[in-house]
């Protein structure tokens, strides 16, 4: 026989009314952190960051020390040179692993909630469809920026610390802004497209396949058009190359792949983002307000 009455207490607390999307971000990241595959992917992304770190240390410490036996090697090695192109190259190479991580994290983010009928539970609480959409998007954006913009900016800071002086500062003050801008260009469209597919399709596998298919199809089309019509500007149809074209402008890299103005590429990215955002918002809103 129980010696106490089983019950639950009254709740008199004052609920927090703002930033509910932050709870979603926190929960999603916490859930992702439990998966070994996710940890492995983050580790791969970190390996590249460590390589760049070694590059900066080699250039800033070894190449600047005339007494060091390796100075002559690093001072004359083009790939060891630290400049805006270094960070452009870092982000460009980091794009693939970022995309894979975002795909792994985001493909099931909305469709699994639909599949497990969690939407009704969430929206029966004081959570709006905007909070929900923002929470899911910000999870992917935060995840993406944590392996692109964050290490990029920290590497610039490290470069300035290892090679202090006005020359370094004058040359590199704008690099963090370029890194943040280009990282956002890599992460935001990828996050929105993945979430759009996740909200449209019934399973995370379908969503992941759809995103990859769209990317492959669009890159192939760009290559085909450019090859058949012998006009390199058609490469801009390929979304990754359109992003690269903007990156070249942002990092003032003169080795341009095609001459089409970056405005058009930026407009292309904006249109893709808006379409993906509209799909996400429409689907999530429909989950809260069925009629």
């Amino acid at each position: 026989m129980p010696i106490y009455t089983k019950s639950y207490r009254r709740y008199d607390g004052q609920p927090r009314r703002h930033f509910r999307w932050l709870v979603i971000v926190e929960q999603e990241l916490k859930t992702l952190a439990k998966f070994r595959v996710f940890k492995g992917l983050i580790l791969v992304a970190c390996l590249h960051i460590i390589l760049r770190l070694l590059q900066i240390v080699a250039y800033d410490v070894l190449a600047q020390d005339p007494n060091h036996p390796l100075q002559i090697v690093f001072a004359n090695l083009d790939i060891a040179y630290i400049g805006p192109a270094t960070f452009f190259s870092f982000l460009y190479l980091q794009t693939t692993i970022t995309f894979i991580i975002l795909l792994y994290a985001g493909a099931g983010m909305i469709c699994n909630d639909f599949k497990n009928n969690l939407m009704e539970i969430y929206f029966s609480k004081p959570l709006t469809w905007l909070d929900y959409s923002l929470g899911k998007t910000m999870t992917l954006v935060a995840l993406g920026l944590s392996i692109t913009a964050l290490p990029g900016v920290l590497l610039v800071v490290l470069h300035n610390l290892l090679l202090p002086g006005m020359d370094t500062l004058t040359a590199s003050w704008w690099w963090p802004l370029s890194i943040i801008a280009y990282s956002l260009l890599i992460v935001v469209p990828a996050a929105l497209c993945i979430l759009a597919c996740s909200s449209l399709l019934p399973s995370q596998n379908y969503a992941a396949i759809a995103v990859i298919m769209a990317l492959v199809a669009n890159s192939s089309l760009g290559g085909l058009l450019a090859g058949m019509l012998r006009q390199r500007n058609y490469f801009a149809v390929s979304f990754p190359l359109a992003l690269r074209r903007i990156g070249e402008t942002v990092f003032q890299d003169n080795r341009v792949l095609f001459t089409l103005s970056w405005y058009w590429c930026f407009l292309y990215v904006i249109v893709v983002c808006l379409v993906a955002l509209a799909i996400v918002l429409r689907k999530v809103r429909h989950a809260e307000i069925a009629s």
Partner: protein
Amino acid sequence: MTSIIEFNDVTVKYNGDPALDGVTIALGAGAIGLLGPNGAGKSTFIKTVLGFTRAVKGTVNIFGMPMPDRAIEVRHSLGYMPEIEVSSPKVSAVAFLTYCGRIFGMRRVDALERAHEVLNYVNLGDSRYRTMETYSTGMLQRVKLAQAILHDPKLLLLDEPTNGLDPDGRIEILDLVSDIAKRPNVTVIVSSHLLPDVQHVCKQVVMIDKGKVVHSGAICDLTIPRLEFYEMRVRDSDIAFVKEVRAAGYECARLHPSNMLLVRAPHENNVQALFQIARTCNAQVRHFQPARRSLEDAFLQAMGKE
């Protein structure tokens, strides 16, 4: 009595077909059952209260606040247990409920504390630490109930709470719901097509059919005694008693599984004659009372199927 839910001429349509058709009703505090056959509009009624479905005509007020304009404020005081199976496969029940609490706006510590408290209340025991993909249907029902009561809502909406449960599990969930309904200032609305479930928990019922409210009122008013019907239980010589009663012009049927006799007296006969027959047959009358109309009868009458 102030109304907690007020529907004024509310029409809700799905693809042009009315799911609720001109519903006007005001519901006060207490345990209220929503009865109706499948597709009658019970779930739509609940979803309209939640603000998930919007009325194309009429007004909805919950706690005096218009819906869906003030849906977020209203949802602070609402708890909802959906009909469909809900699961968050990769997380434990505690983690899921803590998340629900945090979505509600609780601090992390409060959410975790209350998650344990309500999971204990719904008898989930140590299973609360297992991931939800390993849960049985009954356990998932308990989790659904737990998340609905986590923030101690003033209005609890339970859509088919005993769906897919075995008889024991059904009784346990209904007992929990009855217990919740006894809490002060808590209104519980139970939607079901199972009449015994509603009768177990509720004092009032609203009957819905084809999107219209066909009847609403207290269950005790619906199940009024019917003067020509009597419930009897007799000991010894009951077979002979039944034979004699039938010979005297009464209609008599044996009710299962209670083994009670339901006797319908012709208008000209009085009740005393039954006792005389019992004495003649040497049968002991152990139970005798006018039979009440069952909720099922009332329901069928309201649906026009008497």
